[in-house]
């Protein structure tokens, strides 16, 4: 049986933008995730609160990140994820992984996945799962 060789490891840290879109002020999760990704060796930028999708997409492009993670606990996920995805695509950055988490019902997660959004994580997810997901994506999607 043929086994594909593991791609070469990335020679630089993965760059992640953690963002809080909309008016939702719950940033405990965003800050815990940002700290966990940083502790896992990634370069993490946190936008702060109350960002518009335009502000987030612009920051992602300017900071040349690999991954954007949105934290949404306000119920506005069906509006905000597709908007940020569309803006990144318009700016020529369809390569950026858009992922995130928050209070998002399973059926909405499935609907968003069908619209090109990466895996989304709900309450109680160990931060190790996010690290593994992003590292797994980077191994196959980023050039070393």
């Amino acid at each position: 049986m043929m086994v594909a060789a593991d791609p070469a490891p990335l020679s630089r840290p993965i760059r992640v933008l953690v963002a809080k879109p909309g008016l939702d002020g719950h940033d405990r999760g965003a800050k815990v995730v940002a700290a966990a990704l940083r502790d896992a060796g990634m370069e993490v930028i946190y936008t702060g609160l109350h960002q518009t999708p335009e502000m987030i997409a612009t920051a992602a492009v300017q900071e040349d990140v690999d991954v954007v993670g949105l934290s949404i606990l306000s119920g506005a996920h069906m509006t905000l994820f597709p908007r940020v995805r569309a803006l990144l695509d318009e700016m020529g950055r369809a390569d950026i992984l858009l992922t995130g988490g928050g209070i998002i019902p399973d059926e909405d997660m499935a609907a968003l996945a069908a619209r090109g959004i990466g895996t989304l994580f709900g309450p109680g997810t160990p931060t190790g799962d996010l690290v593994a997901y992003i590292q797994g994506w980077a191994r196959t999607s980023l050039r070393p």
Partner: protein
Amino acid sequence: MTTPTDRDELLERLRTREAEIADLRTRLAAWEAAQAGQPVRRDTDFTSLSGRELAPVYTALDAAGPLELPGEYPYTRGIHPTMYRGRLWTMRQFAGFGTAEDTNRRYKFLLERGQTGLSVAFDFPTLMGYDGDHPRSEGEVGKCGVAISSLADMETLFDGIPLDQVSVSMTINGPAAMLFCFFVAAAEKQGVPLARLQGTVQNDILKEFVAQHAWIYPVEPSLKLIVDMFEWSAEHTPKWNSISISGYHIREAGATAAQELAFTLLNGFTYVERGIARGLDVDAFAPRLSFFWDVHSDFFEEIAKLRAARRIWARHLRERYGATDDRSLKMRFHCQTAGVSLTAQQPLNNVARVAYQAMAAVLGGTQSLHTNALDETLALPTETAVRVALRTQQILAHETGVASVADPLGGSWYLEALTDRLEAEAEAIFAQVAEMGGVVPAIEAGWFQREIAQSASRFQVEVETGSKTVVGVNAFVEDREEPIEILKVDEAAERAQRERMARLRASRDADLVAERLAALGEAAREDRNVIPAMLDCARAYCTLHEIRHELETVWGAYREPVFF
């Protein structure tokens, strides 16, 4: 008068007591030596939820317990002599979603089922001072609470609910003054005398900067607006609580019990200082200051926190701020069970968590209580889930017997020792913040925010390494979980709110709106109390964002220090 015989008897009793204490000390030392090296369970590190080291047993050596009665200064044991014998706590479920009509229906549902007060949850646009038809509100209207963009919405929200009979709490901070004015104007329309309005507006901007983040203006003008409310309310709405100084959001954002206690009390002291600096008599406004605590899962730690809070507040108000009216010294508070403790995994288990937390709130002497619904980590609650939450309080009140005796745990060595410990830890934090120059410089330096973020990260690590067990999350996990029914707020609420706003803007007197807004801006520029002018704006159907914007042109906007 003490007779010689009495004195001898007393001395003999003291000698006996001393001998008993000495004997206890010896036996405790032997007991501890015997326990050393004995096997203990490995599934816990035996620290409290907040990481406090706990002894395996507490004795009379740890705490004498106050020789204090409930209703006596400094109110460790409660603010009323017989506590719940006179009156049960107010069962007040926080609720709001969709449009004002949707939420009005939910309020009537709750009142018909024995709820005794209302508590308004606003949506994010309202919390931030945006109208439902503002571009920044898109996708968020009615999602996490009810959309209230003007007096017209407030009238609908309380349609058929007499505001002189039902007390109403409103969780609103950045635009607290605006929503308060809408409420007052709605009460006027119902023909209710303002002096009879009962309820609370949260109005605690300091904890917004510290933890909850629904701010608008910079710190100083925000504080000015709050003192304006104190001043206006003291005169016109004497039964209304003009602030609810809140630990809830500080705790939910990650703070420990001691941090919640200390940070919240510090905010309270800051409001008192600002009121006094305005020239108000402390006893004129302090009786209307109320508090709001999170009640988390560590049963005794939470009860101790509530007892310590009352004691510290009474002492500082009397000794530092010169309050003499008992009503200024008595800390009244609302409690809510800890949303952050609910799990998305096996959500029915949350009913048990909420019940234990609710019991801690009552044993801690709360004046009102919200019990979370089991599904609130997944969505806003369904009617079924809300009913179970309310029934949990009714079972607590009427079946468990805990409401029959005031401070039934008073005198427990463990609880009294914890109460003393929490008080000492809070005092240590007060000293630390005083060194930074007080609450406002500490906020501007991001100190509170950083402390909270660090506590949140520490707890996450404890859960992930298993030193803290969360049932259904890192232990006792089910492979397959049955999904539960959840409430979905669709986009219809947003469309409906846009239509309401369009009708309002078309039908009101536009000249009057412009004139009233200009008068408000004038009051702010001249540094007068802005509440009378704002109330005039409300009466003329100026919208929330119009009022926010008018003041923003004078005061500017807050910029947060960003870090993690």
